[in-house]
């Protein structure tokens, strides 16, 4: 039984790595396809649109994961494998950045790219697959749709905001401030994901 579980975990993580690489390629392909349309757009619009493309692709992966989890009857907590996939996206993005700008400044991206990608994935896992508290918001599928839409707007705003500030209005304290904010958000989202997936049995009792 344990061997089966370990094999299942290994397969799941391999699938997450593959999904991350595929997601990165999809982001690049879509961004490349949209580039001609954004060529004449102002810089801020181009940056915001690229962030939206990335978050939309990530949300698509999260929705696909949620669908297959329900279809296969797997535990909702498996949705957090999307976070692993987004870590792969961040690693590939960092590698492409280092290839173009091979400076130690690239290490600051660990406080930007990684928490932004992983945090958005955690938010989407919470909104798409994990159980919601009964009674809020009212309604069934409509409730889930509202939560997913709100999470998408939040992730897009957060992502685009940091991209715009870093590219168009950077200030000396930005790396430190951005890292602190991103790490705090990521920690909260990861903790919420773990609590909601692993401790749902306590939540379901309506005691906490």
């Amino acid at each position, binding site marked *: 039984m344990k061997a089966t579980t370990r094999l299942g975990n290994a397969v799941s993580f391999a699938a997450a790595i593959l999904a991350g690489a595929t997601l990165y390629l999809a982001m690049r392909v879509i961004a490349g396809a949209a580039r001609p349309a954004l060529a004449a757009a102002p810089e801020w619009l181009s940056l915001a649109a690229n962030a939206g493309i990335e978050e939309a692709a990530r949300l698509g992966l999260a929705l696909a994961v949620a669908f297959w989890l329900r279809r296969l009857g797997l535990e909702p907590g498996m949705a957090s494998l999307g976070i692993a996939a987004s870590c792969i996206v961040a690693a590939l993005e960092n590698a492409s950045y280092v290839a173009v700008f091979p400076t130690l400044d690239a290490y600051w991206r660990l406080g930007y790219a*990684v928490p932004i990608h992983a945090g958005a994935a955690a938010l989407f896992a919470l909104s798409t697959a994990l159980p919601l508290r009964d009674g809020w918001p009212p309604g069934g599928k409509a409730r889930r749709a509202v939560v997913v839409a709100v999470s998408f707007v939040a992730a897009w705003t957060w992502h685009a905001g940091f991209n715009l500030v870093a590219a168009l209005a950077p200030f000396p304290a930005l790396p430190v401030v951005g890292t602190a904010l991103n790490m705090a958000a990521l920690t909260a989202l990861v903790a919420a994901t773990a609590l909601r997936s692993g401790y749902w049995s306590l939540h379901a009792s309506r005691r906490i």
Partner: protein
Amino acid sequence: MTGSDADRMLARLARADLGKRLGFRLVAWAVTAFLAWSLALLLAVALPDASVIGLSARGFTVVVMAAISALPAFLAAPLPASAGLEAVRHADREAAIESWLDYHGGPAGQMLEKRAFEALSIAALAGFGRPAPGKAARIAVKAIALAGLVVFVSAQALSLRSGYGVSLSWPDKAVLDLAFNRSGPTAGHYPGIVAEERAVPDNVEPGLPGDRRYAGAGTEDGDPLAQPDFGNAAGGDAEEEGSAAVPPGVRRFEEAMPGEEKRQTAKGTGMSAEGAEVRPADGADRSAGRDASGKAQVPGWEGTGRAIDESPLVDYRARFERQLAETSGTETTLGSKPSAEVVSEAIAEYYASFDARVALERPVDPGLALAMQVWMDAFGSEASP
């Protein structure tokens, strides 16, 4: 005690359990990242960049950044849905808490709530216990940590042996490679002052710390570079075999000393074994290394007459010549009395690489270039490579 007290205590139990689980995962990520970093160091030190699995500086950075980037994946790896109940059962041997959780709206609710609160209070005092990661997980973490330690120590040992020093980042191999390959271009530009390259034995690796003896490191028997030939100021070029460490002037100086004083004289220093300056037996006012005419005989103390002060300049030249030969891998033929121009040319050649500048341009995406420019404007020199 109220129901909300028990609820708060239960939430505290869940947070404590989660914290310990995440702590274990943090340790697992740390040892894994340490192993990845150590492996990258080992590959960077042991293998040349051009090999198939050799790591360039960029590759090293990418590997390290990817290892660090894995932290969220470790922390957010799926938890079993039963994690909460397992934590409750671990702290609730009499099932008081679980009974309370499963009971809703009945007459025994208050009693169960009281018992659950007591059990939670006791568990809180005991620290809620430790969530037991599986035995396999603990063994795996320890094995990864041990492997990382072994690889790290191996990488550092190899780095020290290769002359890179302690390497915590990608080692800069260009310096040693440049020093070892200097003989080619040097010989081409200055054929008059550079002799033919000596054949390097196959079993000698370039740049090993033990292979180099820098100036002032003492003599080595049989090494012609250890004793640069300045010639005999008295006109005698032929030296006796086995007396290379004893300059001619001093040898004659010792011969002029009788008995006990002769045995106490140290080689080539003009000082006795006890450190006191030794003067000739005839009591003449002569400094060490000078003959009766006042002409210096010791290398580095060359000159004629008292008007010429003892100067280390000539000795510096010898040291420079030796170091040039050691770092370039070629013997030099500056001669016994090279002119200032020849020495100046050699010095300029030796230090020419320090002025080397390489300008590279690559096509940069206009958007990225704009972003970099704004970033540079904001951070100034801190953002420069």
